[in-house]
């Protein structure tokens, strides 16, 4: 009862204060606050702690702001006209030979001008005082988060309240639950409410709470439910409800784990596919071992970075749209560089795979060092647009990140477009013709040189696209290409050179397999296991999943 009384008292005092303030600008604060402020400036640690409690319980945002300043050590006391006054310090500066500081009133932050630092005494925020301040600021922060426009923030606050499971938070949670429009934030709030009731309720309330938690599939509740199920003091009904709820949550957990692993596999597969697609075309169809493939990806990523900076400088209001512009730009930039590479050097070396290997490797070093010289050795910062950060909760305990969903879609579209280009257009027909028999197609009037150039440029463009997509997942730096090139080759070789279907299947297989075994083996051994698996597989089927057959198959 006592705290509430105090709150009421200070609330009344607070309501009264502004009215008085109009008459005299330097209105005296209510007596309990005045006493608290005086205590703060004193030496007695117990009184200082009690003073923080008095100020915190007002729940007045202005006093909470004062407490925040106190915690940061920017509260000072000064003696004026025989009375001690508490002020909040602002920016410091040097005027002449003394340090001065802007100060403001403790409550309403009315500026009080700049005074010499020497005239003030700092109100020390020692550990004990900071600990006393913390719960008030935290509670205030949580309250603010529950009213945040972003549902993810509201959800986070609800989870926190549930984990803390403090009886005092019930009213706050109920109120928020009543107002909450977002389905998943409501879910988290309902979970928090049930967790609090489970921790503090009467036995029959606890039975209800346990049942509710089971229905909500709350993984957070398992430890508390386990305690309840093992609690000898609990009634049989409670224990039974807890056991049932645990069983229900665990079953749900298996389901989410399966869906999660499936999605993770699909996501990794889509990334592998995007990286390997361009290589599959250049390496598979043209027989060029393109060691610069990774650097073409890096070019795409840097193109994204440049587009982002344009938007940031020129159209900040449209910043979120930059990524949509960056996608075609990165495709074109990498494609143009690929075109230059093909016309400039590679075309003289067709049919000599070792020389092209060395040559493209040299090109990769040049591009890499060029990026390092132009953009610096450090990684650059590519921000995710708002619509690609965060995730969508699809079921209790499972959130699918937007960026990964987007990349899966992008990979699907890229594959579809590639298929369409190769098998539904006349350009594709010519590409396939040159791939199968260059001399014959040239005799029949196909301009093999043009076909080579466009095919290579298309493959390079796809690499650029992959680089653009990867900015949403990883780092952008000059050595970005090196990180991905091995995986790209692994996919293409496993899939079988010259077969797009093989590349797709290999990406899906490797992605799924990696994510399937990683939970059991860990990331390090998972990677080792995959590489061993690929080696064994290639021992049995040296030509990959889909071997090229027929006359043009290499002996």
């Amino acid at each position, binding site marked *: 009862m006592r705290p509430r009384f105090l709150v009421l008292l200070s609330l009344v005092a607070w309501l009264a204060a502004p009215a008085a303030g109009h008459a005299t600008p330097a209105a005296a604060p209510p007596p309990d606050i005045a006493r608290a402020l005086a205590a703060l400036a004193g030496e007695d640690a117990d009184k200082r702690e009690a003073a923080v409690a008095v100020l915190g319980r007002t729940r007045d945002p202005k006093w909470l702001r004062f407490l925040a300043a106190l915690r940061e050590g920017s509260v000072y006391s000064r003696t004026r006209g025989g009375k001690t006054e508490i002020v909040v310090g602002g920016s410091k500066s040097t005027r002449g030979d003394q340090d001065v500081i802007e100060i403001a009133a403790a409550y309403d932050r009315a500026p009080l001008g700049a005074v010499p630092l020497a005239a003030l005494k700092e109100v020390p925020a020692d550990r004990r005082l*900071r*600990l006393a301040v*913390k719960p008030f600021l935290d509670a205030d922060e949580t309250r603010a*988060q529950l009213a945040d426009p972003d549902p*993810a923030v509201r959800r*986070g*606050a609800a*989870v*926190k309240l*549930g*984990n*803390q499971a403090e009886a005092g938070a019930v009213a706050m949670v109920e109120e928020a639950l009543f107002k909450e429009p977002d389905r998943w934030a409501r879910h988290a709030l309902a979970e928090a409410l049930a967790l609090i009731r489970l921790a503090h309720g009467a036995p029959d309330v606890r039975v209800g709470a346990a049942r509710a938690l089971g229905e909500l599939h709350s*993984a*957070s*509740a*398992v*430890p*508390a439910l386990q305690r309840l199920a093992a609690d000898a003091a609990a009634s049989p009904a409670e224990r039974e409800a807890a056991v049932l709820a645990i069983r229900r949550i665990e079953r749900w*957990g298996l389901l989410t*784990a399966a869906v*999660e*692993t499936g999605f*993770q596999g699909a*996501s*990794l597969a889509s*990334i592998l596919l995007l990286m390997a697609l361009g290589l599959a075309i250049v390496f598979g169809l043209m027989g060029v071992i393109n060691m610069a493939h990774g650097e073409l990806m890096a070019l795409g990523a840097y193109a994204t970075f440049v587009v982002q900076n344009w938007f940031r400088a020129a159209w900040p209001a449209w910043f979120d749209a930059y990524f949509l512009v960056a996608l075609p730009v990165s495709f074109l930039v990498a494609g143009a560089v690929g075109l230059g590479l093909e016309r400039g050097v590679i075309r003289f070396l067709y049919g000599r795979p070792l020389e092209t290997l060395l040559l493209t490797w040299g090109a990769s*070093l040049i591009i890499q060092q060029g990026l390092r010289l132009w*953009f*610096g*050795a*450090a*990684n650059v*910062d590519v*921000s*995710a647009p708002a619509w690609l*950060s*965060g*995730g969508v*909760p699809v079921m209790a*305990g499972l*959130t699918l*990140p*937007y*960026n990964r969903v987007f990349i899966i879609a992008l990979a699907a579209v890229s594959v579809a477009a590639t298929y369409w280009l190769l098998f539904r257009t006349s350009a594709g027909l010519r590409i396939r013709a040159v791939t199968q028999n260059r001399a014959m197609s040239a005799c029949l009037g196909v301009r093999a040189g043009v076909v080579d150039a466009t095919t290579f440029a298309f493959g390079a463009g796809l690499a650029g696209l992959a680089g653009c997509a990867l900015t*949403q*997942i*990883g*780092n*952008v*730096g000059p*050595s970005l290409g090196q*990180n991905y090139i091995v995986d790209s080759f692994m996919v293409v070789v496993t899939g079988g050179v010259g077969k797009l279907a093989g590349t797709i299947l290999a990406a899906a297989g490797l992605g799924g397999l*990696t*994510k399937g075994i*990683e*939970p059991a083996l*860990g*990331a*390090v051994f998972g*990677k080792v296991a995959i590489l061993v698996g690929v080696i064994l597989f290639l021992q049995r089927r040296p030509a990959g999943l889909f071997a090229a057959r027929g006359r043009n198959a290499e002996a």
Partner: protein
Amino acid sequence: MVEYSRRGFIKGGLAAGAVLGAGLGFPHVLPAQDKGPIKIGVLHSLSGTMAISEVSLRDVVLMAVEEINAKGGVLGRKIQPVVVDPASNWDLFAEKAKQLLLQEKVAVVFGCWTSVSRKSVLPVFENNNGLLFYPVQYEGEECSRNVFYTGATPNQQLIPGAEYLMSKEGGGYKKFYLLGTDYVFPRTANKILRAFLRAKGVPADNIAEEYTPFNHQDYQTIVGKIKRFASGGGACVLSTINGDSNVPFYKEFGNQGLRSENAPIMAYSVAEDELRGMDTSALVGHLAAWNYFQSVETANNKKFVQAFKAYAKKANLPGGDKRVTDDPMEAAYFGVYIWKQAVEKAKSFEVDAVRKAVYGQTFAAPSGTIKMHEYNHHTYRPVLIGEILKDGQFKIVTRTKGLVEPEPWSKYTSPDKGCDWVKQKGTYQKKA
């Protein structure tokens, strides 16, 4: 942090060839004159994977040299830095160290970042009685006569970070997920952290440990595991994930709906310089433990930060006055001054004399006055915990009152070992 890449190897090979050629062409005949400049070595990777971190250390060492030279040098002699590039390749580190000590005859070397590069140059310095100042926080368990460690030992970084999260002020966390890149620092760090947590009564079930390969990009599975680990609350992550993998990790962490107020990440390898190349929005609110932050409010630090920005602009370094300072940079910077003061105290550049003069040396560093240990070759430093802000800086949430004594042998994993170069010969067995 070693990565074998064919490119790095070839590049290194070419550079080594060039150096050899130069060495043959111009043999070093005359010993340095007494009044001529004194040579010091700078051994940081300027190319390859580690360039991203180490280039800044070279910059700050050169800045310290410039400052000292502007004030007349050391013992009346100007300092002449000899900068070499070991190209993130550990074998090349040993080769370059040999070149600095034997051909260039430098008085001291400032260098290395990764533990593996330090281990690779260690025999070179010990056999030729060289002197190395090593500026990066590391896993400890080393006590070399020829190295001064100005970065943190485990008890100056790892343990205070975990202690903070366990404390009431830090949130009173009870479950710890130890996550690191798979190499010597995270492995040893986690061994120490685990021993510490167990000693503080954390049950083994509440500690998880996991490693990822270098340049790991796909953190889906691990974040999923952390999410399950954290359900029920009270869980935090202690991360020794290395530079490049941090962005994918933090992004995945945020995107899967984990938030710093429910499961904070305490990072031991993320500093301002790494944050420069990151989209920090996913990191905001998470924590890091260091001995220095750019946001430290001391007059010395203000001067240091301004001087570095001005230096970067003047020397036309990439980034210019947008460059930031961080813990290893501060340690590299004051290392140069500690050496200078020791030389002045010893009135000699001779390694053994300087070494003895370093013991107990103090310096008003940007993070406050630091002190070299009286006998164990490490450094007394303050410990700070910072919260990551949107602009890539840290808000300091707590700092130790005074300096923390360095313990190269952690009392949690090697309680019987000590390091003393005054009364003992390096690492010794403590009597029970």
